[in-house]
């Protein structure tokens, strides 16, 4: 009660606004409560997301550099520098390759794992449990574990390949093999998570649809492509979208596996931002790369939403 009284004294202008819309005292208190309850979350988001994004955009027009001790507004000058920067160009190319490649593979492998986990066999529970391990393992640890697993001298995989075929695998020397390995390691890390979402989606498909199609004489293959796939398509696109956006901003696995090498063949924009900004203190230039990353996220978001609306199915 005390709270309500003190509010009445303090919020005269607000009160005037509310009374114009003829809102009862009880409703006004509920509105106040709403604002009060969401304010901690919004305080956090505004101070550590909204404001920093605006500052990133501003900094991209400056040459703020803690080492050279420069801080001037230079307009768009960072952008041509960025377009000619060897590291950024390599990173942009591989970011797109990695994000698109690993997302498509993730969805395909995730769906396959989900189909496996959806079956009843001895070991279903075991398989479902270990499926969470790649998700739970710290990404940086997975990065180092794969690097050691693929070590050309004492790694298990090159050792096996050598025993079976006599070929000596030296993965991290050539750009192409390093790129393939980085993509596959991402699939190892993220496909199991996709599988859980698909599994939940598969279990949500109404069974009578399958029964009806069995009566109609459709075989398992047809049932999969005609019923399962269309029904989980919206989910697939949602997940793909999330996955694209999330992986655009992450560099943990690359940091552990290759640190962007050989050269910049496996570097990603996120890693370049970290390097230029946090390691070399080129705040202005790093912010410019961040803006490019934000534009990429925006493009993915718009294309994704358009795809999503096109395939919406209700059941």
């Amino acid at each position, binding site marked *: 009660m005390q709270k309500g009284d003190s509010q009445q004294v303090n919020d005269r202008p607000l009160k005037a606004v509310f009374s114009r819309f003829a809102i009862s005292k009880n409703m006004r208190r509920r*509105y106040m409560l709403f604002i009060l309850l969401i304010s901690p*979350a919004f305080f956090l988001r505004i101070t550590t997301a909204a404001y920093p994004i605006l500052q990133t955009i501003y900094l991209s027009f400056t040459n703020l550099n803690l080492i050279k001790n420069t801080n001037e507004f230079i307009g768009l000058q960072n952008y041509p520098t960025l377009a000619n920067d060897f590291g950024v160009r390599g990173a942009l190319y591989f970011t797109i390759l990695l994000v698109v490649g690993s997302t498509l593979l993730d969805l395909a492998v995730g769906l396959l794992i989900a189909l496996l986990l959806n079956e009843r066999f001895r070991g279903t529970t075991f398989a479902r449990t270990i499926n969470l391990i790649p998700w739970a393992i710290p990404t940086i640890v997975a990065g180092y574990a794969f690097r050691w697993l693929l070590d050309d001298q004492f790694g298990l995989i090159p050792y096996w390949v050598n025993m079976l075929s006599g070929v000596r695998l030296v993965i991290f020397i050539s750009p192409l093999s390093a790129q393939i390995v980085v993509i596959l390691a991402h699939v190892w890390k993220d496909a199991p998570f996709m599988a859980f979402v698909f599994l939940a989606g598969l279990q949500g498909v109404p069974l009578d649809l399958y029964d009806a199609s069995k009566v109609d004489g459709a075989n398992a293959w047809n049932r999969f492509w005609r019923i399962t796939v269309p029904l989980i398509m919206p*989910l697939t696109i949602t997940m793909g979208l999330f996955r694209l956006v999330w992986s655009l*901003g992450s560099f943990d696995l690359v940091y552990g596996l290759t640190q962007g090498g050989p050269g910049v063949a496996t570097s990603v924009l996120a890693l370049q931002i970290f390097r230029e900004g946090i390691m070399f203190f080129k*705040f202005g230039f790093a912010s410019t790369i961040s803006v490019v990353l934000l534009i990429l996220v925006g493009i993915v978001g718009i294309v994704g939403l358009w795809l999503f609306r096109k395939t919406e199915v209700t059941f």
Partner: protein
Amino acid sequence: MVKEEIARPSLIKWNRVAIYVCFILFTLIVLVPVYWMARSSLANASDLTKLPLIYFPTPTLRNFQTLISQIPINQYVRNSLLFAVSTTFVSLLVSFLAAYAFARIQFPGSGVILWILLLSMALPDVGTIVPLYRILKDLHLLDKISGLTLVLSSTLTPFTVWVLISFIKQVPYEIEEAAIIDGASLPQIFLRILLPVTMPGLVTMGLINFINAWNNLLYPLSFSTSPSSKTLSVAITEVFAGFSPYGKPWELIMAVGLAMTIPVVFLVLLSQRAIVRGLTGGAIK
């Protein structure tokens, strides 16, 4: 017809075999990197550089002793724990309050407000790293666990709110209504009524956020400059940067890796169902 009747059992049998082949393949692919890490971290360094490879070297805890004597690993473990626990607590508290507001209070435009909050999930964490560095510096929160906690809690909040809303909506409003009529205050409603019934949701999101914070590399790597706030994820990158007579000290890198992996895998095995419910809860509903 008759032909198909005969053909069918064999088809099913082939499917069964295929399933088990896939299952074994899947298990191998998932577990081989984990086995490789465990095997390397529990071996003597010299056993890792012998050919033919030794699959099961004599187990030893020597690498962990080396780590303890060479780097402030106890401090790193304590920082990791403190960071993960405080991030879990802050993100749950903040998100629970907001989720309650979104789930229960009719507010003009609350749908748009929620949409904006969820949209902010799309911002790549690394894209704001430079301004965050400056903000934390200005607030004297650089190289402090509290600064890391503030930033990561904020990052985890939108998803936590999203999942908690659906958990709160599952609780019948009549229970709160009855409490309000009985004259319960808001804190009482939160603590005595909502908290117990939404506990499964809070546990789920608590586990997910704990694992996220424990595994987080970006923020400690960017904002921690001394052992006073460095976490295990930073420690492993530092051990990697070191050299040993055999090249990279893989036995030590894998030992830190194993120390980081054991707690999260333990949590996952303990509460698989709760975690999956949370991870899929957001996406499916």
